[in-house]
């Protein structure tokens, strides 16, 4: 069983953290991962930086730009992760845009992911139909889960189709927005989470976009299996560096 599927078996509300590889410094990747695991984070999305991140707000755009200026590449990231499974055991997911993966070669990319011990991939701009027609076999061959997104505008019919195509969890985008939005996180979201939760899907739900503190984390995970924090964590890294990780994670988990 894949580490992600294994992690999803329990009832704990999972805390997942997104960070951009190569930010703030190009060689921070391994240490950030080790710190996240040490401080009780359940799962990590490692962001592969892209020059034109369409679904991201200003915070992740800026971290991606810095990472690219720092010299981060797909090749370099795989090198950095070469021995990651000697020190980190939580599920690791690579999140990025499709073009860098296409240039690396999809099969080559999947093979490398499997080699270094990654468990899944999130590529927001690789559509479901393209994935199923051209790439699903390759992902399966290397034991990688491909995680799909759904949003408040996704129809029930399409949610069910995505559920059938998924094999881990579904990434529930909290509101119609890019990442790091300060849109209100209110009753509308709660109703939406409850509605999707009531569909009795085969896959568990993990919420992302707009979660930035203990309160929003609690709200997001009330009816779901976990939540992902990205922009707020990147902001924390820019302000306090790796040294601030412990306190940040503690502040999210506090009851």
């Amino acid at each position, binding site marked *: 069983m894949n580490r992600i599927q294994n992690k999803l078996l329990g009832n704990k509300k999972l805390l997942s953290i997104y960070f951009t590889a190569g930010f703030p410094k190009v060689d921070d990747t391994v240490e950030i991962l080790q710190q996240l695991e040490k401080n009780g984070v359940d799962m990590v999305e490692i962001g592969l930086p*892209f*020059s*034109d*991140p*369409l*679904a991201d*707000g*200003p915070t992740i*755009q800026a971290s991606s*730009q810095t990472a*690219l200026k720092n010299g981060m*590449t*797909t*090749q370099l990231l795989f090198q950095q992760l070469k021995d990651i499974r000697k020190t980190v055991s939580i599920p690791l997911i690579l999140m990025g*845009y*499709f*073009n*860098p*993966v*296409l*240039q*690396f070669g999809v099969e080559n990319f999947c093979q490398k992911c499997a080699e270094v011990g990654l468990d899944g991939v999130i590529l*927001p*701009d*690789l*559509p479901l139909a*393209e994935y199923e027609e051209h790439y699903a076999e390759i992902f399966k061959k290397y034991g990688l889960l491909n995680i*799909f*997104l*759904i*949003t408040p*505008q*996704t*129809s029930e019919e*399409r949610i069910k189709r995505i559920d059938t195509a998924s094999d881990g969890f579904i990434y529930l*985008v909290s509101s*119609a*927005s*890019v990442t790091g*939005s300060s849109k209100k996180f209110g009753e509308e979201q709660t109703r939406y989470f409850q509605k999707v939760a009531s569909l009795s899907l085969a896959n568990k739900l993990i919420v992302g976009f707009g979660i930035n503190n203990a309160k929003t984390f609690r709200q997001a995970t009330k009816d779901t299996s976990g939540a992902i924090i990205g922009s707020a964590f990147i902001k924390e890294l820019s302000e306090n560096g790796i040294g601030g990780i412990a306190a940040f994670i503690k502040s999210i988990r506090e009851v």
Partner: protein
Amino acid sequence: MNYNVNEKGYYGEFGGAYIPEMLYPNVEELRQNYLKIMGEDSFQKEFRQLLKDYVGRPTPLYFAKRFSEKYNTKVYLKREDLCHTGAHKVNNTIGQILMAKRLGKTRIIAESGAGQHGVATATVCALMGLECIVFMGEIDIKRQAPNVARMKMLGAKVVPATSGSKTLKDATNEAIRDWINNPVDTHYIIGSVVGPHPYPDMVARFQSVISEEIKTQLKEKEGRENPDFVVACVGGGSNAAGAFYHYLNNPEVGIIAVEAAGKGINSGESAATSALGKVGIIHGSKTLLMQTADGQITEPYSISAGLDYPGVGPMHAHLFASGRGEFISITDNEAMEAGLQLCKLEGIIPAIESSHALAIFENRKFKKEDVVVVNLSGRGDKDLDAYIKHFDL
């Protein structure tokens, strides 16, 4: 081979809709409705009426006698420069604003590089009384101050794109992000034959009025609908898509696409996508684009802001890859010289974009009896500063 889009949204291996799930409902709504709406009699009637009475169509097909004498062939200019707002861009914005209204949208967003598409969008929004927001790179806002002023006079809000390289590609990113944030009430009027399916096909259909008119007009003048060659400049490629459209599947008509070489193809400052690009994904479409080995999109360069795009529409990528289209690249200097020459020979000041298409005659020879139609996509008023600077006028 067929050079139109197929039912899955592809031109050969190019096209598709590589968009985040957040955009899926918007793009899917458009995909399911655009052909149906465009086929409605009431839509066609309103569209045609506005093209005639508001845009000033049909635009003339003008036999450029002195230009033809100089190059010893028969050159016709399709005068898109005479369209209201100064370029072909308005054909598409008229079509899309009518589409947006029928889809019940109340808020219009657009990207703009040089500001021509922004002006054309602001114009039709004023015409229809709809809210208009134009995203424009911070650097372009400074470079294109008169067009920014025009948009504001027309009631549009101009929002600077401050991300990335602060030019057209970033303005497009910002427009897409805005659409993600406003999925219900907003229609995104893309200005070229780029973006996720169905945009490339929809924009090409709106622009296809250009080649539709060429056929009728050439029949009157030459007794035949088909020229030997159609020539157009290509940035994203909307004027070229319109000029080629009705000739795509007619092998008797040669198709010549002219790209901006900037300071030279190998100078590191170029926008010649067919020569420098590789297959990749940009703004939701699989096409040829300029990128690093690691798949990061690179910044193009051309003296002409309208050709300054790192990708090219999927239709054109397919014309290139299949060999159906002949692709020529023209440097800044060659284009500027050709622009000035048209002024002197024909009394027409062309947009620098269109000057690229005019510049091919120096090196690309045609037979004396060949009929060559050049799509003169825009007028040069907006480029006076660049002409003044270049020629020290």
